[in-house]
């Protein structure tokens, strides 16, 4: 438990992605099985215990600490696991006689929690809390309440695994890890043995595991000149999230692009996956066949479960792009054209509810496509995808076979209102900007952006913020209405969460208009007129 606790502590404070990978690599290299496997499972959300709810932990703490002091402390700290970890009485006079025993290993904790029946868990947790220090208590409580949230995605963990694995097996890629991973269960002894060079690659194939997805590159103008239109098929790029639907051998899973299992949040899709296939598509919210703004989908993302009301208000839909497996048959080696034909045939036969096919967009010349792309302002279309007709379905982001070709961005002249410090290498710079537009005589914030400028421009922006600060709120500075930022964004949607009533999608700084007076910036009405519809 101590090693796991040390890892959690180090990850909590590590600002950079590379630093996190380094910490994980070190952990895999120095921690024996099965603890490292359990740690990996805990970090990637593959380990959940339902017996110890936060309310029960709070009650347990209240038996050892004055409830009033506990409540005041919780108000101050804001995180229950951290509050209990810090407040748990360590002094001998509070001890209940367990203090002589050694802290448990992660494996002991996991096995005990798995074996424990309802009602037994809290007694065990109390005993462990007495033997652990505050870092250990924090890690334990985060583990059992299933709320680690320390900035490690499944993808990051797999990247670290691949990096560590390359010490013994230089040929290993993240996608290899991804594919092997999904066939195995925690604590992944076979996976570690393979990556250490101690065993063969574990078999994969059957089961509803995640298959690495094929991703595209943005199409640059200079790329397009060299492409033959006859070699490519075009289809709409829908404005949702890319998903993989895996239904094999009775098991059903819905995965995000990065292999995170999002099945729990979308029962309205999973319920209709009564087939045996692996498909690639776009997850959307659609009402009566009409795609809703991305914002509606956003309400349903990042949730473990979903309420009846959310299912009613934001019904999910999948628009299918591709087929990877039809039953046991692996179609990934076929060309796009062949797979497309198989997809159409399969769809005709199965007719799954809440799903349809993403139509191909016929064209002969690039300029036809340009017109189509720029004319498409309806909800749900982000641009076009170009897929080479002979391309196999390859893992990762190979350059050449697939391109995404987003429609031109919208732009707006806004005024900087607040600036906030960035993270990691940018922590000494004010690099995150909230900007607004005029409504009458006042500015209303319409979005926030932290990209789109060069390092040299960042230095100038940082200086400008420091010299034009009017108020400070912790890490945030309010600035004079004096700098116009031309912001580019993909689309704008009505939003109840923003004061202006509008939310931009993918806003970024397009140009810094040092020359333009703030009062000449755009008005809210201008932005409202850009709402997709």
């Amino acid at each position: 438990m101590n090693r796991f606790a040390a890892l959690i502590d180090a990850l909590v404070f590590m600002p950079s992605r590379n630093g996190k990978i380094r910490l994980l690599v070190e952990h895999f290299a120095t921690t024996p099985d099965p603890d490292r496997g359990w740690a990996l499972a805990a970090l990637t959300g593959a380990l959940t215990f339902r017996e110890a709810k936060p309310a029960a932990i709070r009650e347990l703490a209240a038996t050892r600490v004055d409830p009033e002091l506990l409540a005041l402390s919780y108000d101050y700290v804001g995180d229950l696991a951290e509050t209990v970890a810090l407040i748990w009485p360590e002094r001998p006079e509070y001890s209940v006689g367990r203090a002589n025993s050694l802290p448990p290993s992660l494996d002991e904790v996991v096995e005990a929690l798995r074996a424990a029946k309802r009602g037994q868990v809290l007694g065990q947790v109390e005993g462990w809390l007495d033997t652990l220090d505050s870092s250990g208590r924090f890690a334990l409580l985060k583990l059992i309440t299933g709320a680690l949230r320390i900035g490690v995605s499944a993808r990051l963990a797999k990247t670290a695994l691949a990096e560590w694995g390359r010490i013994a097996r230089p040929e290993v890629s993240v996608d290899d890890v991804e594919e092997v991973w999904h066939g195995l269960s925690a604590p992944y002894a076979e996976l570690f043995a393979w990556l250490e060079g101690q065993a063969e690659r574990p078999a994969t194939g059957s089961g509803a595991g995640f298959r690495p997805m094929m991703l595209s590159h943005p199409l640059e103008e200079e790329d397009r000149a060299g492409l033959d239109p006859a070699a490519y098929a075009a289809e709409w790029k829908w404005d949702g999230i890319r998903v993989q639907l895996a239904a094999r051998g009775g098991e059903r899973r819905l995965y995000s692009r990065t292999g995170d299992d999002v099945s729990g949040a979308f029962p309205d899709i999973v319920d209709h996956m009564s087939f045996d296939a692996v498909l690639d598509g776009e997850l959307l919210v659609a009402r009566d066949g009409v795609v809703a703004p991305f914002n509606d989908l956003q309400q349903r993302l990042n949730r473990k479960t979903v309420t009846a009301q959310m299912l009613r208000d934001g019904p999910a839909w999948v628009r299918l792009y591709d087929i990877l497996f039809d039953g046991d048959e692996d179609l990934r080696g076929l060309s796009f054209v062949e797979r497309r034909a198989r997809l159409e045939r399969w769809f005709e036969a199965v007719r799954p509810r809440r799903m349809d096919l993403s139509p191909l967009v016929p064209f002969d010349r690039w300029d036809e496509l340009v017109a189509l792309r720029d004319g498409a302002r309806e909800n749900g279309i982000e641009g076009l995808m170009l897929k080479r007709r002979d391309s196999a379905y390859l893992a990762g982001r190979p350059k050449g076979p697939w391109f995404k070709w987003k429609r031109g961005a919208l732009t707006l002249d806004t005024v900087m209102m607040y600036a906030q410090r960035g993270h990691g290498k940018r922590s000494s710079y004010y690099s995150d900007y909230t900007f607004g537009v005029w409504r009458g005589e006042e500015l209303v914030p319409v979005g926030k952006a932290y990209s789109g400028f060069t390092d040299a421009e960042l230095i100038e922006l940082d200086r400008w913020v420091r010299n034009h600060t009017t108020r400070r709120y912790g890490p945030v500075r309010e600035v004079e209405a004096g700098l116009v930022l031309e912001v580019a964004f993909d689309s704008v949607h009505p939003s109840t969460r923003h004061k202006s009533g509008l939310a931009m999608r993918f806003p970024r700084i397009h140009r810094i208009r040092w020359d333009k007076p703030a009062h000449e910036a755009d008005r809210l009405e201008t932005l409202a007129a850009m709402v997709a519809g």
Partner: protein
Amino acid sequence: MSAAHHSKPDRRHPDGPHPDKWIKVLPEGLYVEPGGFYIDPVRPVERAVVTHGHSDHARPGNRHVLATPGTLAIMRQRMGEGVGGSLQALDYGETLRIGDVALRLVPAGHVLGSAQVVLEHAGSRVVVSGDYKRRLDRTCAPFEPVPCDVFVTEATFGLPVFRHPPDLGEVGKLLHSMALFPERSHVVGVYALGKCQRLITLLRAVGYDRPIWLHGALEPLCRLYSSLGVELGELRPATVAAKEDLKGALVLAPPAAVADRWARRLADPVVAVASGWMRVRQRARQRGVELPLVISDHADWDELCQTLEDVAAPEVWVTHGREEALVHYATGRGIRARALALIGFEDEDSEGMPEKAGEGEAS
């Protein structure tokens, strides 16, 4: 702990006025009426008694200032001409009569020169703690508990989640990180008065004898501490140092500078902050701190509770900090307790990481 407070005889003279009749909270600060002076006033007054040199307690412009010699030296160093009219030094333990009040300064263990103010009037004894801590600090005299009728205590870390771990363990964390990342410089945010010198003495005590590099804002007080006999070892100015020299070096800077423009001169620094606030992970993380060191010059929760026990006052007034929890705790122990609303002391947010060097050093 027992319920001893219930049976403790009241030290206060039965005929004398209750201390809340002669100690008042005015906009200028805590006013001791029969002596005609304020303790740590927030605005310039005629007569001020100053507990210690931190800028939220020691402010410029008072006509008469009474403090320990150490505190006066610090105030002169920091304020120069603006320090005030006449300065009067009073050694620890000596009694001075001011008007109808007998006053004594007693070590508070917070920073060099820090004092509690012991007031006696009309048969009652009141102790105003100023800021204090209970653990070993080689840079100042240790806290002395003084039994009293009313104890006016700080409560900066007045919640039971604040338990400062042993100092040497925290110093060990710093040295471990330096061994793990020998190519990176380690920059530690420390308050210029007290924390800086204490951290240096802790490092020297565990045998760290390499030069320690200082941000310019920290140098004057380190010189003053040295001249007053606190051994700090070899110190070098970081502000003018070459980037190459600072690789693998230990650099101390005011908390506001560690993640700001000043720190850009360092090569890929590990950002640390030494403060009691570092105990709460999310707070440390919000500040962009990679290596939090829980080293504080304030009493933690257990020390606050222990001190209430030690001074055995039947009545406690709780000032700046999280008053509510300590009032609740004291009341549960049979102590009459209330929060004293003093303005002008640092609140939690500015204390954690002040924007300017020299501000909010009290944690």
